[in-house]
């Protein structure tokens, strides 16, 4: 049942206009960070984007439980998003997605 860990993440940027923010780009950014830090096996993390909001630049995604610490570490070590200094602020983590459902409004559920 609870094989996944859910992250609620907000992207903070110096100049938000300069970047393209899509689920695909976000996913590749995180997976690149994982791969550069934990090698090939880390890069093969199974990551699903549950919710995505362009307006608030906020994402809910999930990873298998055993990748939780790695993903969180990699996420906090990301310093740039498309060459712009950024900060992925982890707003919350949970084992169930229900905790976040209310927070993000007007988002289309999307899976990559």
């Amino acid at each position: 049942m609870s094989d996944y860990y859910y992250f609620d993440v907000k992207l903070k940027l110096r100049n938000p206009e300069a970047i393209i923010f899509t689920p695909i780009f976000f996913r590749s950014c995180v997976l690149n960070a994982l791969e550069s830090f934990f090698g090939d096996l880390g890069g093969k993390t199974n990551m699903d984007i549950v919710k995505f909001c362009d307006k608030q630049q906020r994402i809910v995604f999930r990873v298998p439980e055993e990748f939780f610490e790695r993903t969180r570490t990699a996420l906090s070590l990301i310093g740039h998003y498309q060459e712009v200094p950024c900060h992925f602020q982890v707003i919350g983590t949970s084992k169930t997605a229900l905790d976040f459902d209310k927070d993000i409004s007007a988002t289309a559920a999307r899976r990559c």
Partner: protein
Amino acid sequence: MEQTKPFFDFCVPFNKDDKQMRAILNELVELGYKTIAIDQSFDHSKKDAGKRGSEMFPAPHSIEHLRKEFADKLRILQRITILYVDVNLSHAMSVSYNLRKFNLIAGQPKTDAALTHCCTTFTGDIITFDPVAGSRLSVNRKAYQVAVRRGMFFEIKYAPAIADSNNRKDMIKMAQNYSIKGKSKNIILSSGAEHEFQLRGPYDVANLAFIFGLSEDQGKNAVDRFCRQIFLRAESRRLGKTIMFVKGNGPIVFSDDDQSGAEDDEMDGLGTEMSKDVQNEEQTEIKPPIKRLKVA
């Protein structure tokens, strides 16, 4: 009692640009830090040794306006990081008046000998290292143990690890070194962030501790409890004596109304003896703290 609230970030480099400084402080507030230290570094080895007796250390930057602005949100401390090579520094430190104006004193040794000195005799609170060039230093096991016994803390900054992957390698190497030599005892994590995007939330930092070879508990303590310990130790070093405030909540009633006067006579007889005993007790009680202070 000096109040400090978690979480702590004991290394925010001082920035002349007020706007930048405010941006960093605002971000710190948002992330949930309550006590921070603004860091100012000072290179001792560059100073000419000819001047004796004069003040060697700089006065702290004036941050009163920032303190006022963030009065209810942040407690801002001041810290000096002394980069040094030779061990003659101890004398300069003991006579310096400016040094007492800083809340925290950190040492950043440049050589192995200086690092050993830093662990064993340095009168500061924190031992830090330069993430760019510091990876060549390696702490010796015995010195590490002495440092732990003296209540010194080793600092690891995480911002350089975010900025550059080469630094990251060096920092992990350094942290693993601490882990091998001293089981990662007495380690604190602080930011050292140049701009606000290099800051991370306290829980993220605690989680980052995993890659630095700390356990979950040590990771949490590194941003919380250990920093409090440093602060208290630094305060006691700075003030020289520990001051205690006792606050009463109304009058204290000693006597019981039910007891008769007969017993009072007995008590009178005991009175003088009691007072002597109390005096003796006081004397014995006072002695140990003085001893401890001398050691510290």
